[in-house]
């Protein structure tokens, strides 16, 4: 029996693999492992003490809670926005389309200052909201508003292309089979959009967890009320407590990693369920 050499159709596999791994290591893996290495220097007891301090735990709750909620809000409204942009034509559509990207482009501090000016007690919106008893600035609600703002483009931009590719014949087929509008959406359109929607959700969430600039202005940073985890890290750094900062950072990293893993798992599950097995 003679062994036949197998050839790959596309050349450059080794080069590509090497480049990818090298690039990823240099840019992502090495800096991240530095975080853990630095943390290991402090000892287990001290690590637990730092990362479970009540003030720090309160920031985890706010950071991850507000980020998940913001991503969920963006998933709903981002989907609606993408739908409107793809399905209808209205005056100023191009401008709205361009506006969607603005939270990407705007320096986060600018966004933070603008939101604070708007929602502060004497701001344009804040003064009326204050009258009906809603405080936005310097509360967890303010944090949420900022995170919704910066996360908006992710869902819109991931769902939009899928919606554009969606064949209107599918909806016509569903209608000819007797499906009502909402049934068509629920059983035909939504399942097709779901993977993209989950991707958008994951991106918006990841961005929100790491967000710092736009949040700190509107949050007011009251301990136990409106402090976010990235702020804790900065605070530690400013006190030259580098190990404390990396300890909290590593907890954040692990949390984020687990959450993203879950979302990816969900995506794989929906893909499998819909026959798009890879």
């Amino acid at each position: 029996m003679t062994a036949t050499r197998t050839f790959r159709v596309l050349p450059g596999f080794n080069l590509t693999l090497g480049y990818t791994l090298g690039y990823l290591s240099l840019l992502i893996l090495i800096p991240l492992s530095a975080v853990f290495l630095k943390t290991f220097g402090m000892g287990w007891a001290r690590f637990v003490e730092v990362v479970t301090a009540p003030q720090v735990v309160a920031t985890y709750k706010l950071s991850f809670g507000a980020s998940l909620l913001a991503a969920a809000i963006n998933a709903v409204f981002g989907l609606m926005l993408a739908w409107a942009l793809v399905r209808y034509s209205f005056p100023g559509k191009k401008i709205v389309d361009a506006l969607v990207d603005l939270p990407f482009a705007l320096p986060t501090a600018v966004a933070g200052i603008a939101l604070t000016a708007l929602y502060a007690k004497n701001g344009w919106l804040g003064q009326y909201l204050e009258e009906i008893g809603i405080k936005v600035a310097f509360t967890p609600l303010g944090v949420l508003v900022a995170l919704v703002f910066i996360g908006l483009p992710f869902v819109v931009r991931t769902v939009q292309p899928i919606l554009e590719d969606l064949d209107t014949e599918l909806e016509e087929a569903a209608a000819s089979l007797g499906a009502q509008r909402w049934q068509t959406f629920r059983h035909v359109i939504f399942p097709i959009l779901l993977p993209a929607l989950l991707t958008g959700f994951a991106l918006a969430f990841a961005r929100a967890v790491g967000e710092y600039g736009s949040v700190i202005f509107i949050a007011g940073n009251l301990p136990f009320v409106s402090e976010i985890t990235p702020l804790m890290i900065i605070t530690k750094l400013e006190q030259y407590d580098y190990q404390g900062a990396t300890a909290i950072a590593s907890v954040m990293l692990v949390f984020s990693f687990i959450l993203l893993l879950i979302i990816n798992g969900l995506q794989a599950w929906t893909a499998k369920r819909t026959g798009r097995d890879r």
Partner: protein
Amino acid sequence: MSIQVKNIHKQFGAFTALDDITLDFPTGELVALLGPSGCGKTTLLRIIAGLEQADSGQVLLDGDDASSTHVRERQVGFVFQHYALFKHMTVFDNVAFGMRMKPRGQRPSEAKIKDKVHELLNLVQLDWLADRFPSQLSGGQRQRIALARALAVEPRVLLLDEPFGALDAKVRKELRRWLRKLHDELHITSIFVTHDQEEALEVADRVVLMDHGKVEQIGTPEEVYRHPATPFVYGFLGSVNFFHGRVEGEAVRVGDDTLPHEPHDFDHGAEVVAFARPHELDIDTDPASTAGIAARINRVLAFGVTARVELDGINGSSGQHFEVELTRERVSELGLKDGQAVRLVPSRLKVFEREGASA
């Protein structure tokens, strides 16, 4: 159930897609809407289905005006050219879709749905694919599933929009025969749109020929093929040779040549187009003869049951190409050679008056 359309008019901007169409589709027939692309046949089908609204006119289903009824209430089965299967559902779920979407009161139980789906999948001979996803099927299988899905809601009529257009030639032929058989079993009033004349003539009980938003001719495949009513129909159904000329007594004069023509009721001097199918032309190799059209042999293709001879016109019809179909015996009997000058003599000629436009 019968379908009637009355005075349907449809405009897309400045383009008239359908111009005052009135048609009657009797119960239980399989009718083909045949025409070149852009002739309005798909638009007409979509208007009958309710996927598109006519600017004016009526669609009558079983005698009732359905013009303002939504597609989901019309109970029509619609099959799309590109199948439009739900990719995220299995074949089973695709077929069950229509039944599951029914209002709770009318919805059959899951057990009944299951029986019905398997019955339909058996009908289209694909029961073994129930758990697959559409992406795992071939084109022909997908279209059969799409048909089963449309039949699941027990439609009163079946509308098929170029159902075999996206399939390769062999599968297309197979599915054609299969569709005809299926229709003979179900006897559901069906309309299918196609631009393939062979498909229409082979499958349909009746053929409606359309061009530029107008109906050109209606009839059985035999009728429209044997007795085309207009130059368009003649030219559209099968290959054809045509000669522009003028009526002179008992003949048609084409340039310097004449074509004999039986008694007719054209005026002397009328501008006409004469049509002859490739098998209705014979070749005369005698240099002395004067009847028929002078032409030069370009190529003799003798690989089939019959031989095809391609010729270029000379004299009055120069620049034109002709095609003649002869038996292979006839070709060797005549001893045809490339470049040889011959005359074309029609055994049968169909003459239409020219209305400015040529076919």
